[in-house]
């Protein structure tokens, strides 16, 4: 992201295409461009913050296989990757095939043009040329993954790889999240991996203390304090301070009638102790809607010791949407702006760090990803 005074642009990925909302300097007026690629399932639309112009889009249509589209001019024109993420072909043709590209992350700031992609079924891919061609990260796909597959088995709707977090102090140090699988870490650029799930509950597994098989929904690493990790998990909200290896369930401080289940976790760009989550109903049959039909963000300013409800501007009842894992984000302005997209196709924004919210767009398709960026 750019300087704290720059205009904010929202990159929106939906089940039926992508939209770009360009904001004015006050972040009060928004003009929409799009839909881009109408009818495409857009899981993720991400800016390369190293140049401020390159966008990558993870897309597929109902009929066609998955691919990556690239824009070198901030979304005005697009070209398709020459070699999208794909698994190695096996001799007998029974190998895995990428069903969707789910997650895109630029690599380290020092590695211009380098990207990572996470897929469903679970796969990790890298590109060294700005997303034009993609290769497997063999240390994961051929090294770690078979062990996870053996431990976890098949997931009905397919498991996926998300939350590729790059340590800003070390380009070879990465964390990833697998739903399901758990959190994993590499210190050698992806050649070897180790699980990082101690302390995380897995109440859906026969062995709740298993090393593999956890379900992180989102993992986030603070850019100014990369030893600080937060995780919104299927089984609560967690925090980990490295070099420690034991996660602590900070969601226990959430109100009991709301719980600490959700998809996204959003970091304050300058305060590693400030985090937002968006709880959903994870009781009994997992409705995955706003608890009680009353949507609210929750914020902590003390690293999870306490949480404050932030719902001013939201419907007070009968609002049954929720927010997917890539669909909640912050800008870098002061005060911080927050933005999220709902499963019901609304975009909500706050320009006062969550104290009040307003709906800035409605009637969009089901929203999968929202990213607040400063374009060059």
């Amino acid at each position, binding site marked *: 992201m750019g300087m704290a005074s720059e205009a904010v642009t929202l990159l929106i990925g939906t089940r039926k295409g992508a939209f770009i909302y360009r904001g004015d300097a006050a972040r009060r007026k928004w003009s929409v461009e799009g839909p881009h690629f109408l009818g495409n399932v857009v899981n993720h639309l991400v800016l390369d913050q190293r140049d401020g112009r390159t966008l990558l889009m993870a897309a597929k*249509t*109902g*009929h*066609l*296989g998955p*691919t990556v589209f690239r824009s070198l001019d901030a979304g005005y024109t697009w070209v*398709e*990757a*020459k070699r*999208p993420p*794909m*698994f*190695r*072909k*096996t001799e007998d*043709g*029974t*190998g*895995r*095939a*990428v069903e969707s590209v789910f997650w895109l992350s630029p690599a380290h700031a020092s590695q211009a043009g380098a990207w990572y992609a996470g897929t469903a079924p679970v796969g990790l891919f890298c590109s060294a040329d700005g997303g034009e061609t993609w290769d497997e990260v063999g240390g994961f796909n051929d090294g770690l993954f078979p062990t996870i597959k053996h431990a976890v088995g098949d997931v009905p709707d397919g498991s996926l790889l998300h939350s590729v977090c790059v340590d800003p102090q070390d380009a070879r140090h990465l964390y990833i999240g697998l739903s399901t699988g758990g959190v994993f870490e590499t210190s050698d650029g992806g050649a070897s991996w180790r699980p990082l799930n101690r302390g995380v509950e897995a109440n859906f597994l026969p062995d709740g203390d298993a090393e593999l098989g956890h379900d992180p929904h989102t993992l986030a690493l603070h850019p100014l304090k990369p030893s600080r990790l937060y995780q919104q998990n299927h089984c609560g909200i967690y925090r980990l301070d490295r070099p420690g290896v034991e996660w602590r369930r900070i969601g226990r401080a959430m109100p009991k009638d709301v719980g600490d289940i959700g998809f996204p976790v959003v970091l304050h760009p300058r305060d590693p102790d400030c985090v937002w989550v968006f709880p959903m109903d994870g009781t009994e049959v997992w409705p995955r809607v706003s608890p009680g039909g009353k949507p609210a963000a929750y914020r902590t300013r003390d690293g999870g010791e306490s949480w404050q409800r932030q719902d001013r501007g939201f419907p007070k009842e009968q609002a049954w949407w929720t927010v997917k894992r890539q669909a909640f984000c912050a800008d870098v302005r002061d005060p911080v702006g927050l933005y999220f997209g709902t499963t019901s196709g609304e975009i909500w924004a706050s320009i006062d760090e969550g104290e009040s919210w307003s709906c800035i767009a409605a009637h969009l398709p089901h929203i999968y990803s929202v990213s607040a960026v400063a374009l060059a």
Partner: protein
Amino acid sequence: MRVVIPSPLFSYTSGQREVDARGTCVGDVLRDLDAHYPGMRHRIIDEQDRVRPHIRLFVNGEAASSLRQPLADSDELVIVAALSGG
């Protein structure tokens, strides 16, 4: 030979519904199409050479048996995109 293209692939053929391609089997024709319309093959055939779930291939009106099915220049290959769900 004549190849009929479904609308989801029109972005590759600049809107052409029918194109010409060469090859002695279904797989060859799809590779020839990809040479002329880069990226098209991956959208309909996965990396294990399996036809994607919502794609069907027909030769002269009959379902193609495999990518290895022989073709003659006089044959017609129809690519069908069949979607379910909302």
